[in-house]
């Protein structure tokens, strides 16, 4: 309940939006009222739900792929000197590159279908997970490692039973950032080339002057992103419940 009360600023924004639209302060083509947008959401329920399913499917496919590879690469970099010296400069150089710039390239390689979109999302999700896994595992307390080694842990146990759990707060932060990127690039990719998904729906309704549907799509994207982030936050709090802090 307290959690919900903290969300009151969102309610304030929605109320101001509704009042501004009703007072006729803005052209309804630019800004239809919140209630009109919600009516469009209900009226196009089937369509928007299908779009949402497409978007979530792409986002999660890319996220799972990118995060898994990121986890493995991050672990390898933290564990093997050779992997570190080879990959660290590459990761550092590519991380700041806006991933969307790779999209045309990926389309040439992988076609206009799902593969290029999922690849783009995966690339964007890869970096935060790889970097955080690497940093988290590099920073594991020397005494925890020593404690494990003097108690008979082998290399694999040291990795899986000590380094990974110890780095979990970092890894999880990376995953959360990656999720944000995945959503961002899902919508962007869908706006560029797709005939379904929420990104497509938003740009399509804009082009066809269906402002209410466009806003309904935006509200839906925002709600989904928010919900998934909250879910991850909840999951994180349970996964990292051992952390000696109140919040993560």
């Amino acid at each position, binding site marked *: 309940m307290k959690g919900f009360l903290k969300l009151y600023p969102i309610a304030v924004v929605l109320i101001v939006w509704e009042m501004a639209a009703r007072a006729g302060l803005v052209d309804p083509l630019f800004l239809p009222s919140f209630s009109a947008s919600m009516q469009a959401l209900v009226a196009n329920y089937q369509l928007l739900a299908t779009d949402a399913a497409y978007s979530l499917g792409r986002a999660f496919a890319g996220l799972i792929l990118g995060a898994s590879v990121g986890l493995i690469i991050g672990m390898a970099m933290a564990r093997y000197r050779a992997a570190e010296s080879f990959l660290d400069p590459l990761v550092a150089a590519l991380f700041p590159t806006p991933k969307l710039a790779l999209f045309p390239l990926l389309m040439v390689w992988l076609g206009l279908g799902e593969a290029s979109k999922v690849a783009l999302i995966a690339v964007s999700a890869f970096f935060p997970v790889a970097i955080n896994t690497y940093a988290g595992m590099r920073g594991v307390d020397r*005494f*925890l490692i*020593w*404690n494990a080694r*003097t*108690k*008979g842990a082998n290399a694999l146990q040291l990795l899986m039973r000590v380094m990974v759990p110890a780095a979990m707060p970092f890894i999880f932060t990376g995953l959360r950032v990656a999720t944000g990127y995945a959503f961002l690039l899902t919508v962007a990719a869908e706006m560029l080339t797709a005939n379904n998904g929420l990104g497509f729906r938003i740009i399509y309704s804009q082009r066809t002057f269906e402002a209410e549907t466009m806003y309904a799509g935006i509200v839906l994207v925002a709600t989904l992103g928010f919900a998934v982030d909250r879910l991850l936050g909840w999951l994180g709090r349970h996964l990292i419940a*051992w*952390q000696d802090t109140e919040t993560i």
Partner: protein
Amino acid sequence: MGSEGLIAQVQVEGITKHFETKREGKVTALRAVDLAVQNGEIVSIIGPSGCGKSTLLYMIAGLLVPSSGRILVDGSPVNGPDPKIGIIFQEFRIFPWRTALENVVFGLEMRRIGTAAERARIARKYLHMVGLEGIDERLPKELSGGMKQRVAIAQTFACDPEVVLMDEPLGSVDSLTRETLQDEVLRIWQESGKTILLVTHSIEEAIYLGQRVIVMSPRPGRIIREFSVPLPFPRSAAMRTGPVVADLRTEIWALIREGGGA
């Protein structure tokens, strides 16, 4: 101490350890340290802060490599950590994501000793031994500093090492608990027959726990003198305030204050 021909369980021969530092260049932490600890002995090491006591224990545990000299345990050179040499760190670290019980079973679990139920039974025994009851399911963040340290002691003993290295194991417990735990350490030592090498900052503790007390000089650490403690076991509360402890204390204190001129 040891009779002729008997190989000490822990044999430190001419150990020197340098560290490369960015600021000061080569730092010598220990110089030409010789030490022999017999099977079943309990020996205390005392010396000023920074004299290399922890470094010495890390090398015996196989965690650091000496710059020169060699270390033998049971007659064979130490190369890398070995569960038969247990260590309780000064910066005692238990795994924060594991409950107290899960921490104590750690070593047994890694080496796949017994079933989960057997491991838990062994762990409870050691938790009981250090005076921790009913906290099995608590995470380290829910334990006090002293409790965590006791979990760390139980964690190391549960692995049943032959040699136990203790780096100021009672550093963060209150003085009441500290005396109780000192007696526990002595009781465990007598019951288990383990070889214990113990670093402490407290002269009284060094005397009360040790058959011998080894005194080190400031950095670079050398062994400047060794005292044997003429007190029988089991040791009693009366000995803490008795003349033997008092006299030894005065002597060791003077030696340390003098700064290891020897």
